[in-house]
């Protein structure tokens, strides 16, 4: 990776951090537990990386591929479990009719 593209990625990081701080500080305490599990599900985004790793040409570097497959399974648990449990929690928040 060259420095130019690294710096652009840093821009993305810095801006996204600002967005994150501004958005999260607005979340009311009621929603903190769902937020925690929801953002936990989001951090399962490494599943994308796992696909990249496990999809690679199998012949040449089997260990790399196996690690990728394990990562894929683990990340799937994180993503699916996280979103579903968050949804289960949020489903319970109802206003009195």
């Amino acid at each position, binding site marked *: 990776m060259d420095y130019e*593209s690294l710096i652009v*990625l840093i821009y*993305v*990081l810095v801006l*996204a*951090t600002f*967005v*994150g701080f501004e*958005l*999260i500080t*607005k*979340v009311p*305490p*009621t*929603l*903190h*537990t*769902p*937020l*925690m*599990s*929801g*953002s*936990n*599900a*989001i*951090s399962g*985004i*490494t*599943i*994308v*990386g796992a*696909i990249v*790793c*496990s*999809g690679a040409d199998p012949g*040449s*570097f089997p260990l*790399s591929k196996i*690690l*990728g497959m394990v*990562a*894929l*399974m*683990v*990340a*799937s*648990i*994180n*993503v699916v*479990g996280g*979103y579903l449990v968050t*949804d289960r*929690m*949020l*489903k319970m*928040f*109802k*206003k*009195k009719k």
Partner: protein
Amino acid sequence: MDYINLISKLTYLIASVLFIIGIKMMGKTASARKGNFYSSVAMFLAVAVTLLDQRVLSFTEIFIAILIGSAIGAYAARKVEMTSMPEMVALLNGLGGGSSVLVALSEYIRINSEIHQDIDSITAVTVILSILIGAVTLTGSYIAFAKLKGIMKGGAITFRFQHALNLILFIVVLVASTLLVMEPQNEALMYVVLGVALLLGVLTVIPIGGADMPVVISLLNSYSGIAAGATGFVLNNQVLIITGALVGASGIILTQIMCKAMNRSLVNVLLGGFGQTGGASGGGSGKSDVVVKEVGVEEAAMIFDSASSVIIVPGYGMAVAQAQHIVREMMELLEKKNISVKFAIHPVAGRMPGHMNVLLAEANVPYDKLVEMEQINDEFSNCDVCLVIGANDVVNPAAKSNPGSPIYGMPVLNVEKARTVIVSKRGMAAGYAGIDNELFGYPNCLMLFGDAKATMTQVVSELKGA
């Protein structure tokens, strides 16, 4: 130009926007569920387009892996008790960290095994960062899980030279990492970094008391975001960076909020040892020398019956007893009798931020009945009966009056201002902070001993009879 590549880049962009919008919508109760849905759509898009773009050779294995993972995840999500949310988050969080480690490691091995491909130092730094942070998140989360679940001794586990040992390990990691950046081909060094990082995850969490685990989990959640972001740098992928930043920010802010509500600094939490004193002074029940007045179920029911306004203060004990449903039933009964009922929610009641809100929502208590501390604190003086159910530290007046108390300065609910306070707990045991509560000896305070669910069920049947 490669069209598939262009499409996949654009899809990543759309996914990033959806993630941000999802988080934004998670900020309002009315839109939160939709926000979570959008966020999951974003995840789906990112996964789908990656599958497409990478021109994966062997879809079968990938689908099997995803299917197994999803099935486990879905099963766990359906089965988990609402009271066990902290454990669930700890578990999942560890998996997130683990996946970061595996991805970075796999990428490292791949590049390394390709002949003639040199690892440049930027890539090396990012790989090391993902592995380091991911590994600490992994083991740290599992220790936290074990402590919450009671598999491991909940109190602070301390031994001599603990901090010194951690410091040495930290230096080892730093040195190994630096060497690795200079000589990225050296796989052995990479495993040293990985091993020590895993160990550090364990050692930094064991000295922290079980009750501080929510703070730890929230912090580790933030780490798992940072690890994902670092992986994004490894793979030159913006979605990973953006979501990593969002999760990182969310974890850090929640950690801050918890620390602030407990009036402790993050450093104080992380250095550990807080749960210890708690374990000592609050272990047995009845040890403290405050004289309390007991009240029976029938009498309690009568007191409720003759009140015109009731404030209910739930705490961790309600979660333990799973008493939220019977409490809701009681609320409805009282409201039918034209008694106004409100819930006072302390920011750190329970063991997670928003814990009480989730439990009461589960029991179908409408969320406009839940009032936050600042709003309700002035209303206690106009309230006839305050029912403290399984709460202890969050109603401890020592936080206001006793500068020597470990929780001094933490904002608490002014329950003692109510005409009558009824406290439902099993005995005289201390709460999380492990300190006595002089409230129980106050003249207007009546103790209703017993498991919260059992006693409340009796109170409700008395009320029905009345």
